[in-house]
């Protein structure tokens, strides 16, 4: 069976589907209704997926564009472990945060939380200095 056959035969059948009347199409598809539902669901999910992508891109963008003046922030790769340390040092905040599934937080969530903590008055820079101090003393 040649490659040309594969290509030509199915292309020709595809064109035949386009040329069918609505009645012919309905008659040839025993599961017409369920196919229509599935097709519509796929199209809707593509739109939903795009909306989610847009929301994520927007929140990442607004996060980048609204830095809090004077807030020190560790490098992106270190933010997660740093957040854990902040929680450990501030048990009151940790009480709320520890109930959340830490692993499920995205990198953006981690950065947002650190910014929120800084807004609430937690001195991130001081905590980092303290941590560095402990390390150099060791």
């Amino acid at each position: 069976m040649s490659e040309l056959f594969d290509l030509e035969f199915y292309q020709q059948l595809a064109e035949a589907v386009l040329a069918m009347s609505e009645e012919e199409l309905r008659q040839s598809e025993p599961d017409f209704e369920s196919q229509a539902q599935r097709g519509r669901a796929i199209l809707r999910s593509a739109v939903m997926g795009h909306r989610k992508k847009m929301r994520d891109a927007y929140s990442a963008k607004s996060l980048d564009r609204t830095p809090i003046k004077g807030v020190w922030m560790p490098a992106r790769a270190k933010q997660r472990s740093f957040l854990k340390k902040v929680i450990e040092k501030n048990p009151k905040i940790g009480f709320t945060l520890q109930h959340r599934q830490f692993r499920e937080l995205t990198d953006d969530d981690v950065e947002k939380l650190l910014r929120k903590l800084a807004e609430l008055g937690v001195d991130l820079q001081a905590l980092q200095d303290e941590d560095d101090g402990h390390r150099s003393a060791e």
Partner: protein
Amino acid sequence: MKSSEEENYSITSDQHLDTVDVVEAAIEALTDSQIVRLLRFADLKLRGCRIFGQSRDGEDCFQEAVARTLEGSRRWNRQKVDFFGHLLGAIRSISDQWRKQSARAEKLSELLSESDTSEKERLQQEEKMAQLRLAVADDPQLGQLIDLHLLGLTGPQIQEHLQICSREYETRMKRLYRRARKSRAFL
């Protein structure tokens, strides 16, 4: 006061949101028949399409057509074409692109001696064709049509060989499709 960058961004976002809303409404306005037609069309266009072990079918193509429209890489000219026409054009273009990629990937796999899968697929394909041939055994015109396709003849060549017009050829192909779907042995 907003910076020019922020203003540009918000304008783009608003326009984009408008497009998403319009596309969403257009999806709801599609009839069941249009959706099934497009889905079946996409499925047939991509029959046997595989890119590095991943098969691509009509559903993938459907999703991609909407995604490209929303991302702006496939523009929908609402003045010239309705949403059905737009999706049809997108499906044609995406399936052609994927088919080319599939052919390139297949060649590469052959070079890397990974053609066991394609050999298996070829055998499965032959088996399916035999089933289809059996399903239309009572209709010699359709049997002849399959045989000529199997010989590698194109649509116009078959029309010439059988001395039939394009309309008659189309009618026979539609009948073949209906029989194939009904037999459930194939397609």
